[in-house]
């Protein structure tokens, strides 16, 4: 079965454009749901021996004199987000909760991040992205002896990470997802995923054009046909692992697995439908220019 994938190039560009537009909308309208790692503040997870409702817990915390920014139930436990609190307040809150819900009330985890850490995390992430992207660009350009290959691969890579950011504005707004340092890890992994798939397709393009030659768009199209099943099957196996991690792995890695999952899907999509069409269009335009001059 041979499909002329590249015939529908405009659709792919359209779909990517739409996704990017939605991401821009999400970023402007809701912004990234920055977690405590970025904003600074405190997150405490409590477990209670008796039944608790979020409203009741919120009220009780207000009475204890702390300003909560959110109270959320996670599995059987409750996650409370606060501003910066000192040790005295933290201990008083635990005592109040014990008095109300029983002695077995426990502080399961506690996280406090100073206000300076967040901006550093952002800057370090930017450096990490720039170094990875730069390295990948050079590597792809070097192994395929053409800068256009590298630029197209990196463009697809940024396409993926931008849409991943956009999807988290939506997940954050509607489902309470948060962007933390694990998300940063997922973002960087998406970069490498994306380019991993792209290189496999590029490699096939190089092989076919060496063996048979021909019009570049035909070569690229053959390469897409030959690698399509592999791309899909490979991302299915990765998705199977990540799906079970997202559903069974517990709350700490839930959104991390979801972010990796979205990244995997985007990375698989962008190689045949963003990187290669971009490359083909670019090379065709360059050729036309050469012919004209």
């Amino acid at each position: 079965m041979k499909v002329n994938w590249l015939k529908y190039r405009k659709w792919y560009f359209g779909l990517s454009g739409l996704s990017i537009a939605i991401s821009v909308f999400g970023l402007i309208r809701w912004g990234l749901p920055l977690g405590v790692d970025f904003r600074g503040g405190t997150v405490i997870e409590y477990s209670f021996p008796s039944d608790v409702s979020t409203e009741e817990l919120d009220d009780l915390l207000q009475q204890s004199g702390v300003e909560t920014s959110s109270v959320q139930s996670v599995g059987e436990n409750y996650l409370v987000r606060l501003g910066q609190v000192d040790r005295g307040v933290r201990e008083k809150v635990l005592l109040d909760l014990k008095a109300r819900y029983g002695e077995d009330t426990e502080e399961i985890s506690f996280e406090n991040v100073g206000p300076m850490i967040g901006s550093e995390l952002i800057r370090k992430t930017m450096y990490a992205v720039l170094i990875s992207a730069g390295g990948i660009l050079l590597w792809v350009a070097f192994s395929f002896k053409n800068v256009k290959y590298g630029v197209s691969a990196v463009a697809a890579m940024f396409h993926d990470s931008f849409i991943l950011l956009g999807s988290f504005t939506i997940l954050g707004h509607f489902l309470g997802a948060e962007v933390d340092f694990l998300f940063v890890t997922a973002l960087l992994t998406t970069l490498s995923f994306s380019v991993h798939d792209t290189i496999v397709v590029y490699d096939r393009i190089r092989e076919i054009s060496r063996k048979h030659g021909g019009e570049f768009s035909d070569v690229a199209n053959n390469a897409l046909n030959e690698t399509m099943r592999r791309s899909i099957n490979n991302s299915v196996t990765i998705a199977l692992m990540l799906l079970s991690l997202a559903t069974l792995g517990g709350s700490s890695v839930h959104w991390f697995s979801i972010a990796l999952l979205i990244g995997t899907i985007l990375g698989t999509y962008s190689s045949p439908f963003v990187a290669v069409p971009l490359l083909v269009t670019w090379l065709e335009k360059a050729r036309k220019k050469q012919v004209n001059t």
Partner: protein
Amino acid sequence: MPYHSVLECNMHQRAGRRILLIFIITVVATFVSLPSEFGLFGKTFYRRDLNINLAGISVSRKFDLKLGLDLVGGSRLVFEAETTNMSDEERDSALTSLREVMERRVNLFGVSEPSIQISRFEGRDRIVIELPGVTDTAQAVSLVGKTAELNFAEENAHSEEGFIPTDLTGADLKRAVVSFDQVSGKPVVVLEFTGVGGEKFAEITERNVGKSVPILLDGQLISMPVVQDKIIGGTAQISGEFSIDEAKAMVIQLNAGALPVPVNLVSERTVGASLGRESVEKSVKAGVMGLSMVLLFMALFYGRLGMVADVGLVIFGVITLALYKLIPVVLTLPGVAGFLLSVGMAVDSNILIFERFRDERKKGINVAWALETSFDRAWDSIKDANIATLLTAFVLANPLDWPFLHTSGPVRGFAITLALGIGVSFFTGIFVSRTLLRTIIGRGGKR
């Protein structure tokens, strides 16, 4: 013809040796990756650790997984050192001794396998302390984070409040111990001075007979004993309103020495032991579930070939786990995610090869040749593609400790397991499955 058969014979011999090698590696890796105690068919088995004593050389190695804070429970404290007005040289030496003093305090506190690191980013100096098993951070923070500068002062005759510090400080201490006051039964701290310190103390007490010698810790008055007579024995006693725990903490701080620069707590993270256990259970469940689905998928989609890939995948699993124990890699929750991700990626090379194989077979090429071509061709793209992934893993793991990149443990844990997974998948995805397939197809061809 004869040439061909010789070649084939060689290939079979080589394949035999390779299978043996794979078998041995698998058995060793399985052994290492087993838990130290496990139940099978209603019986309990124990895995022994390496313990060899031969001709005076003893090799002993425990094969236990090292789990990170988020899996065993514990706390991570980040202190920022006040080094803003220091020259580079001063700062370097201050930070080095800061790290040493904190390490001594933590060790005296009795935490097993703590980790203490300096991290520097854009002019800010931080000390990151990880304390496995410690969940009461109130005590840990005050113990580790206090400057603990001890000073003996003299009363200021001209004003009511002020004290005049002397040159007798914590640096003149030989050691400090907790003791109990014989009259009141309250905990006290007994100080033993060095020779020079003892002389200084004698001078000070001589000057101040009938007056008090206030003892200050970090500028705070903790005790104000009145000198009855010149003290020449070189010991002093601090009594005050403190509990036995506070006395112990003070002793640790005094013995470890004062911090060369004051520090502030800027970030803190504590995970309870129960949450850690829960995370381990859940990760194992997710791993088993995901792995079985991948195994099933490969078998359903690629039939016999898929089952060979499955064998390779299981070998991948045990080798990776064994490497975690041998290197050792500290396994954190993101690290577990990295491992699971690498399982998903490990079959990539097989899928790539099998798809290629399918195409080659369609062209009418015989099985053995199609297989060889697929493996050879797939190797190029796997290599090129994985180098890109390794590059990102390198940036995330930041092995050279570049200060402008992340140095945080969890991100590192993820990157290291991911990189390791890719490395092992080179071996299992290409070498193992190629050898297995050659053998199977070789035999099938003879029949």
